[in-house]
């Protein structure tokens, strides 16, 4: 018989806000998280912050990962954070990846972004951080 389980997989929304059309990196991360046993909802390219907030809520995810290469991170990421707050969903942690200068990364973290992964970050590191942000590190 079915048992209630604490071990429900971690659900992550991976989204690419903004206009750049490169989602290789986001897909690689999505696959790595899947291979680590997570359920990844891949939102696809060119999502608006409002669409991302909506998806995060309807999909009831544990985390949101944003991949941004276009340089518009200081504009787009705060809008996602703000949208989540407006929907009373600020408990959903947000992490970011892409080409984000250190100075911006620091500012984003002050705004509430839980982790920022630069281009060189290993997949193991990302998987481990995602687990620990979700509160399920092994």
């Amino acid at each position: 018989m079915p048992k209630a389980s604490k071990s429900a997989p971690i659900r992550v929304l991976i989204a690419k806000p903004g206009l750049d059309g490169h989602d290789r990196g986001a897909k690689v991360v999505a696959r790595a998280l899947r291979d680590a046993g997570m359920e990844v909802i891949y939102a696809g390219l060119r999502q608006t912050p409002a669409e991302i907030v909506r998806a995060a809520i309807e999909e009831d995810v544990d985390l949101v990962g944003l991949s941004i290469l276009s340089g518009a991170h200081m504009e787009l990421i705060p809008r996602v954070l703000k949208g989540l707050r407006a929907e009373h969903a600020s408990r959903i942690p947000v992490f970011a990846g892409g080409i984000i200068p250190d100075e911006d990364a620091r500012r984003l973290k002050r705004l509430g972004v839980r982790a920022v992964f630069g281009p060189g970050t290993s997949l193991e590191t990302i998987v481990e951080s995602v687990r620990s942000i979700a509160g399920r590190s092994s």
Partner: protein
Amino acid sequence: MNGREPRAPLARAVRRGDRRALARLISLVERRDPAADRALRELYSFTGRARVVGLTGPLGVGKSSLVNRLIGHLRSQGRSVAVVAVDPSSPFSGGSVLGDRIRIEREDADTGVFIRSMASRGQSGGLAPTTRDVVRLLDAAGFDVVLVETVGSGQVDVEIREIASTSIVVLIPHLGDEVQTLKAGLFEIADVFCVNKSDLDGAEQARRDLVELVALGAPRHGWRPKVVSASASQPFGIDELWAAVESHEAFLDEGTRRADRDRHRLRAELFELVLDDAARRLRGAVEADRTFAELVEEVRARRLDPRTAAERWRRRSARPRG
């Protein structure tokens, strides 16, 4: 039975149209949390109103793209739509990448659409029962139409079909191998065939082949599947696709068809539950029973065969104990 508003907070919130509560409750249903059971019981009386339409078909034929277009079509008629998209899980890690998530050009504030992705594995209790319960939540939440997308894979589709009132099987031109798939089961499922990507070469031929195939088969319960050509990318054929769904729904509404179908399904569900319950109780009784362990030893020593031992246990346990 109807009308009594639920007491469980999450169930109440769902009835009030709280989307976060709905999303949360779906997660609880997926992992068979006891809180979900309570909510489902309380919400059951509000179900049975939504049109539940399944879309299935091989990988990449454009199911999600069609769902997208159908959402647009239904919204323009003022109907609210919920979508459950079921994606396969990795057999290796148990994880999954669900998506690309269905994406609609909708107003940001449009509360008439709700989209949820689900992994096919890791559903404690099985995919079909979980999907059925998730569909019930969406139904109780008041959505007029619930669309269920699944990747064609035999058994799963047959089970999902038992949830939908109309099932669309999506195919594309140059069926070739697909025709084999049809014979293997998709044909049994379809109330409507949709030849998507009919903007591509070979669309007319594919449609004719299907019409022929449909004409050869015997109608199932008096219904001969409709064949519709469409293109989700152009788009065209979307109105026709929904019209075909409506005509099947109208067919069900004649006489007692819908009631018969409903009864048949609910009977199977109830039977399943009663069986589960009986099995659970019996298991408890067997595990607690010393004579059962003794019978095992008798069988092991070849003094009794398993069937006779089972019969003995049955007779013994049927007797009232003193």
